[in-house]
């Protein structure tokens, strides 16, 4: 299965500032996904990032607040802009893998997450 490196693993930021989260995959993937998980909650999809095109944002999320870059098939960034305490969450990137052979799990695989605290 793919290895996803996500950084930073955690950060404490001042309100009004911005943080860029990086996600690097060790194989080429068509789509990458960015999720937010607020404390004690399930995951919410922010946007889907395809290489070479604008990201597709879910209802309630806008590009000005969460700009995404996808410069190639192995890398993406998510920026959380003009942060407020309500943005304190875990942010996770994810890719979907083909089911590859016997024992291959397939499905969605996640980075280790970025735990963001805004003060």
């Amino acid at each position: 299965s793919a290895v996803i490196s996500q950084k930073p693993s955690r950060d404490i930021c001042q309100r009004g500032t911005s943080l860029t989260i990086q996600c690097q995959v060790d194989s080429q993937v068509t789509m990458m996904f960015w999720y937010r998980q607020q404390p004690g909650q399930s995951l919410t999809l922010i946007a889907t990032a395809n290489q070479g095109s604008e990201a597709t944002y879910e209802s309630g999320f806008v590009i000005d607040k969460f700009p995404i870059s996808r410069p190639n098939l192995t890398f993406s960034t998510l920026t959380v802009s003009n942060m407020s305490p309500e943005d304190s969450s875990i942010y996770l990137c994810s890719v979907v893998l083909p089911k590859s052979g016997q024992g291959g799990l397939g499905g969605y695989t996640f980075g280790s997450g970025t735990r963001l605290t805004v003060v």
Partner: protein
Amino acid sequence: GIQVEQSPPDLILQEGANSTLRCNFSDSVNNLQWFHQNPWGQLINLFYIPSGTKQNGRLSATTVATERYSLLYISSSQTTDSGVYFCAVLINAGNNRKLIWGLGTSLAVNP
């Protein structure tokens, strides 16, 4: 839209006990995944199971797509099994597919 319901919401076990977690979904789905989120927040893919039964060590999962439910079995639980177990179903969404998540089952295994 599709609803994904997990039960129970919380579960406390003594080490060595067995348990069954359930995931109900309200409509047809392309696929279903079970994840374990450990206390450090890492999401681990356990099973990718549109139908049938799969086993991986002490864990197994069964999905009955026609009846719209999936079960995750944990046998001989260990303290390292603690965390939140999520069920997520894969649906068509326009030109893409997306995961719809349940609220999770929070499991604590005591020594």
